[in-house]
C-alpha cells in the first residue's frame, strides 16, 4: 500500500479522480462516459505532443517549437489539400516535414552545441514566420478544404473518433519505444548521465537529435489533425500551446533535469490539464481562474517532484533487510 502511494503515477491518478469528483459534485453530466470520451478526444493533440516532448525532456533538452511546427505543417497540409493532393500523401508529407523541422532543432543542438531552449525559441519564431511568408497572413477556412480532409479525425470507429484512436496509437508506440528499444533506453541514459553515456558508447548528440525528430514528426502529424478538426489554418493557430505541452510533462512527473519519466505519467499530466480546460468553463469559472489553476498545478507538481528527490538510501536498505 505504501509503495503504491509513493508512486507518482498513483498520486496523479488520485488527483485526477478527486478533480473529477469535485466537478461532478457541481455538474454531474461532466462525468458521463460520453462527455469523458469527448474530453479525451479534445485532449488528444495535447497527449500526442506531450509524448513527443517527454522524449525530448528525458534527454535533458526541451522543444519549444512544437506548436509552431504544428502550425506550419498544418498550413502546408491545408495548402496541399487545396492543390488537390490525395490525403495519404498529405499525411506522409506532414509527418516527414515535421520530422525534418525537428531534425533542424536536433542538428543545431548537436553540431553547434547550442542549448535546446535557445535553439527552439529561435526556430519557433522562424517556423511561424515561414507560414506568414507562405500565406501573406491569409487564412485557409473551412469552405476551402475538402470534406474528406476535414472528416478523417471525426470519423467514429468503435465508439471513438479517429483523433482519439490516434492518441491511443501514439501512446502504445511510445510505450514500446521507451520500454522495448535500445533507442528508448539511450534517451534515459543520455538524460540521466551524459558522461556515462559517452563512456558506454552512446552518442549524446545523435540520441538527442533522434528525440527532436520524434517530437517533430508527432508535431507534424498533429498539425494535420488540428487543422482538419478545427477546419481552419492561419499563422497563429495553437499559439502558446507549447507551454501547455511542457506543463503536461511537468505535471506528469517528467524530470526537467532529464533521465526520468513515464508514459503513464505524461498521459495523465496531459489529461489533468485537459480536464481542467474542459471543465472549468462548464462549471462557470472564469478563464483567468483556469490559468491560475493550471499554473498552481504545475507548481504543486514541481514542488512534489523535488520533495520526492531526497535521499532514500535508508528506506531501501530496510526493505533489503526484510527481503533477506
Amino acid at each position, binding site marked *: 500500500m505504501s509503495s503504491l502511494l509513493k508512486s507518482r503515477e498513483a498520486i496523479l491518478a488520485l488527483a485526477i479522480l478527486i478533480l473529477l469528483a469535485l466537478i461532478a459534485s457541481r455538474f454531474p453530466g461532466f462525468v458521463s462516459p460520453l462527455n469523458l470520451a469527448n474530453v479525451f478526444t479534445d485532449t488528444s493533440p495535447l497527449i500526442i505532443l506531450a509524448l513527443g516532448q517527454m522524449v525530448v525532456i528525458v534527454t535533458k533538452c526541451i522543444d519549444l517549437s512544437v506548436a509552431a511546427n504544428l502550425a506550419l505543417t498544418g498550413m502546408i497540409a491545408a495548402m496541399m489539400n487545396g492543390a488537390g493532393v490525395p490525403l495519404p500523401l498529405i499525411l506522409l508529407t506532414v509527418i516527414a516535414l515535421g520530422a525534418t523541422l525537428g531534425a533542424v532543432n536536433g542538428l543545431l543542438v548537436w553540431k553547434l552545441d547550442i542549448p535546446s531552449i535557445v535553439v527552439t525559441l529561435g526556430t519557433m519564431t522562424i517556423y511561424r514566420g515561414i507560414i506568414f511568408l507562405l500565406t501573406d497572413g491569409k487564412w485557409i477556412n473551412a469552405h476551402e478544404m475538402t470534406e474528406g480532409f476535414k472528416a478523417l479525425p471525426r470519423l467514429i470507429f468503435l465508439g471513438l473518433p479517429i483523433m482519439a484512436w490516434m492518441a491511443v496509437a501514439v501512446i502504445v508506440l511510445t510505450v514500446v519505444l521507451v520500454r522495448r528499444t*535500445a533507442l528508448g*533506453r539511450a534517451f534515459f541514459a543520455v538524460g540521466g548521465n551524459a558522461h556515462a553515456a559517452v*563512456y*558506454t558508447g552512446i*552518442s549524446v548528440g545523435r540520441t538527442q537529435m533522434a528525440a527532436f525528430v520524434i517530437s517533430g514528426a508527432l508535431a507534424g502529424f498533429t498539425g494535420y489533425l488540428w487543422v482538419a478538426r478545427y477546419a481552419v489554418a492561419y499563422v497563429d493557430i495553437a499559439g502558446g500551446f507549447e507551454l501547455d505541452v511542457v506543463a503536461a510533462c511537468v505535471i506528469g512527473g517528467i524530470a526537467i533535469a532529464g533521465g*526520468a519519466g513515464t508514459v503513464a505519467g505524461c498521459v495523465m499530466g496531459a489529461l489533468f490539464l485537459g480536464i481542467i480546460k474542459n471543465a472549468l468553463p462548464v462549471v462557470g469559472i472564469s478563464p483567468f481562474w483556469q490559468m491560475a489553476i493550471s499554473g498552481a498545478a504545475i507548481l504543486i507538481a514541481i514542488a512534489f517532484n523535488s520533495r520526492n528527490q531526497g535521499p532514500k538510501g535508508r528506506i531501501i536498505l530496510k526493505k533489503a533487510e526484510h527481503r533477506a
Partner: protein
Amino acid sequence: MQAQPASGTTPPVLSLRGISKSFPGVRALNGVQLDLFPGQVTALIGENGAGKSTIVKILTGIYQPDEGSIAIDGRPVQFPTAQAAGDAGVTAIHQETVLFDELTVAENIFIGHAPRTRLGLIDWAAMEAEARRLLTSIGANLDPKVRLRDLGIASKHLVAIARALSIDARVVIMDEPTAALSHKEIHELYELVETLKAQGKAILFISHKFDEIFRIADRWTVFRDGQFIAEGHITDVTEGQLVQMMVGRSVDQIYPKRPARIGNPVLTVSGYCHPTEFEDIGFTLHEGEILGFYGLVGAGRSEVMQALFGITKPSKGACRIGNDIRVIRSTAQAVEAGIVYVPEDRGKQGAVKGLPIFQNVTLPSLSRTSKGGFLRLSEEFRLARDYTQRLDLRAASLDQDVGLLSGGNQQKVVIAKWLATRPRVIILDEPTKGIDIGSKAAVHDFMSELAAQGLAVIMVSSEIPEVLGMSDRVIVMREGRIAAEFAGDAMTPENLVRAAVGIEEGEAA
C-alpha cells in the same frame, strides 16, 4: 631527522598540534603537526592521499578538525568558516584558482571586502587604486578594470595572490601553484615568492616537484598516510631521504594476487601521442596480466586510457589488438574491439543514476539482449544477475535505482556492465578510490580472478601498496611520458616514487 618542533629564534606565526580529521571510512589526518614561520617557505611533502589537501581545507576553514589545536602567535584560534580564516590572516591560492571570470580584476581582489563610500556603496575609485597598488607590489602590471576572463592563467594566479594580500594575509598557502604554469611563468612565481618572503609572510608551499622544493623552500614537513613524519631545514636533507620518508612503509596489507599464467600479447600500443596530454606511449599487455600504471596526479595516465577507449583521439600512434591493427575513434569501436574502461569518476562517468541496476549493466550489451530490434527484459535480467552475482553486489533488487547504492556497490555495477560485454582488455582507473575497505577487498579479489581467467587488466592507481600488491608489472608515467617500467624485484616503493617525481637512481641516497 628532527621530529621535535623547530627551535628557531623566531616563534612560528601559525602552529598546528595534534590535528585529526576523519571521513566516513577514512582517517585523513591523524594527530599531525605543522609550523609556519614568518618570512619562510615551508614545503609540505607527501604522496597522493597523504592528507595535504585536508590540512589546507582545515587551515582555510572549509573543514573543522575533529581534534587538535590551531594557534596564531601562540594564541589558540578556531576557523569555523572560510571568512574566519581570512580574518585571522590565513589565505590560500588553490590548485584551480577560485575566481570570477565575469568580474574585473579589482572586483575579484576585493570581493567580499570592497571599500565603501559613506553611503555604503562600493567605492570604485578607492578599490581600483588599492588594487593597482597591490598588483604593483607583487610586480604585476595588470589593469584593475580588465575582466578576468580576458587574462591568461598566470595572470589569474597573480590576481589570486593580490587578493590574498588584500586581506592582509600573514600566512599564504600555495597548493601546487606551478601545476598549470609555463616555464617562464614559474620563474616569475618564484620571484613573487621571494617578494612575499621579504614582506614577512609565512608561506606553506605544496608541491610534488623536488627541484622547485629545493629551490624555494626554507623548511620541509613530510606527511604520510595522514600522519606527521618529520620536519626540518631544507639544507639538512637530501632528495633520497625525503623520498624514503614519503613512502617509508612496508606493503603490509594483504593483496589477493594469485600467480596467473601470462599468455600471448593482447594489446600492443606504440607511439601514441596527443598534442597536449601525452607523448610516445608504447607498451604491450598480455593475457592474464595485471599491468599497473603509477604516477602522480596529472601525469597523464587517465588521458592515455581515455585515448585507448576512444574518448579522445590520439594524434599519432597505432594500437594492435590480437592480430588486428585497429584505429579506435569512438567508444563504440573500443567496446567492439574488446577494450573497456571503468572510469575513475563513477558519479560522473560511470553509473547512470535514475536507471535501475539491470539497465545500467546491460547498457552497452543491448544488441545481445535484444531480438529483432526489441529489448527482452528477461534476457537483460539474466545477464545482469549473472554478472552482479559474480561481483557479490549487495542490492535489494536489480530493479533498484543505481543512485541509491553505496559507492562500492556502484563500482561493482559499473564493472559488471563492462564484464557483460565480454571484453579482452579491461582498464580500471583508480578502481578502489573512495570506497570502503570491504568493497576494496572484493574489487581486488575480483581483479585477480579476472586475470586468472585470462583477461588482460590495466590498473591505474595512485596508491603504491595497491600498485605493488596487485600488479605483475608497473609502468610509471611522469609529465605525459612513460618514465620507467618495473617488474619483479625492481618493483619497490622507492623506485616507483623516484621515477614518478623524476629523480635519477644515482642522485638519491
